[in-house]
C-alpha cells in the first residue's frame, strides 16, 4: 500500500458554471454529434441561439452525463433517456418537497384521543 497526499479544489457543477460544447464533449467523454442531437431533441437546454454561442450550465453537464449513462447501461434510445431524466428530476423535486414538509410537520405527532 503506497500512500500519497493530494490537495485539490474541485469544479462545482452548478448553475454558476458555464461550458462550451467542446468542453461539454470532453467532460462527457462523448462526441459533439451526440450532444448536438440532445440539444435538438430538447434533452439539453443551453443558453445562446447560435451553435458557437451555446453555453451549458453545470446542471446541464450532469444531465448530459446522466443521459449518456442511461442510454448505455439500460440500452435506451434518446427519447427514452429523456423521459427517464425528466421523471428522475421530478422524483428528486418531490423527494425534497416531502422532506421539507415532513420537517415542517415534525412536532405535530398524532396522539390517541382520551
Amino acid at each position, binding site marked *: 500500500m503506497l500512500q500519497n497526499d493530494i490537495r*485539490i479544489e*474541485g469544479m462545482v457543477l452548478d448553475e454558476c458554471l458555464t461550458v462550451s460544447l467542446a468542453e461539454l464533449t470532453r467532460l462527457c467523454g462523448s462526441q459533439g454529434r451526440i450532444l448536438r442531437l440532445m440539444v435538438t431533441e430538447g434533452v439539453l437546454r443551453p443558453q445562446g441561439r447560435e451553435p458557437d454561442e451555446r453555453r451549458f450550465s453545470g446542471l446541464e453537464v450532469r444531465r448530459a452525463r446522466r443521459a449518456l449513462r*442511461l442510454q448505455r447501461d439500460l440500452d435506451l434510445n434518446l427519447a427514452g433517456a429523456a423521459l427517464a431524466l425528466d421523471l428522475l428530476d421530478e422524483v428528486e423535486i418531490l423527494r425534497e418537497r416531502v422532506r421539507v414538509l415532513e420537517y415542517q410537520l415534525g412536532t405535530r405527532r398524532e396522539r390517541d384521543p382520551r
Partner: protein
Amino acid sequence: MEYKDYYKTLGVARDASQDEIKRAYRRLARKFHPDVSKETDAEARFKEVNEANAVLGDPEKRAAYDALGSGWHAGQEFRPPPGAGAGFREFHVGPEDLGDLGDFSDFFASVFGRGFRDTAGPHGQPRRRRGQDQSARILVDLEEAYRGVTRQLRLDVPELGPDGRVTTHSRTLNVRIPAGVTQGRQIRLGGQGAPGIHGGDPGDLYLEVEISPHRHFTSDGKDIHLRLPIAPWEAALGATVQVPTLGGAVNLKIPEGSQSGQRLRLKGRGLPGDPPGDELVVLDIVAPPAATEEAKRAYRHLAEQLNFDPRANLRV
C-alpha cells in the same frame, strides 16, 4: 478469493434460458442503476449484476463458468482449477462488457483473465484508454455547506502492473468543498478517477453532495427552513425574538396576530451564493402546559374573556 454465484446474483436457475437471463439482467439493471436507485449500495449491486451478465449473457463464457461445476456456493473460498486461467485467456474482455480495471472481481479475472493486454491498437501497439470516471457520495452538514470545508477522502485505487496483476494502493485526497454547495450538486475532480490503461489519461472523480440531517434546520436548495416555536402571546401581541441562522443568531420581528404555519422570510440568510438563499421561518405556536393552579386559572380567565371558538369554520 471468493466464489461468485452469478446465477444467484441474477436470481435465475442454473438451467435458465438466455432469454430469461436477459430479462432478469434488464430488470436488475434498471433497479440498481446508480442514476435511478437511491439504495446506498446501488453502485456495487449494479456492478455485480453487470459482471454476472457479462458471463451468463455470453454463451461461451457461461459454458466456461458452468464447467467449474455446480458444487460451489457464493462466498466460498475459490481456487481456480489448474490451467483454467491460462486456458481461458483467449476470452476478450473489452469495453463492450463494461470492462475496465476495477470493474471486475478477482474471481472474474481468475476465470477469464484480464483481457486488457490483448486489446491491441491498429499497429499492434496496446491501445491507450482513458480511465473510467468514478463517482462517490460525500456527506456534508449544513454548517460545512455554509462555510465551506476541506474534506479528507481515502480512495483505494486498483492498478494494473506490467505483469497483468492488479495491485491496490490507497490515495488520500484533501478536497476543498466550497461554501454554498447544495443537496445533489456534483463536484468534479479532474484526473482523480480510475487510472488510464497503457498510458491513457486517468478518468475524473465526481463527488455528489449529500446534506446530512440537521437538528434545527432543513434545506431546500439554497433556502433553509426553520420551524420556530413561539408562545401564544408572542403570536397575538407581536414580539421580537432571537432565531438561529447558519451565520449566527438574528432578531426576528413576529407581527401582531400571527398564526401557526405562517412563514416569515429572512432574506439572504440561507446558503451563500449569487443570489444567496433565504431562511424561511415557519411559526409554530406552542400552548404552555396548565401544570399549576395559577396556570389553570389564567387559562380559565382567558376562556371567559375571549369568547373564542376555534371551530367556528367547522359549523358543528
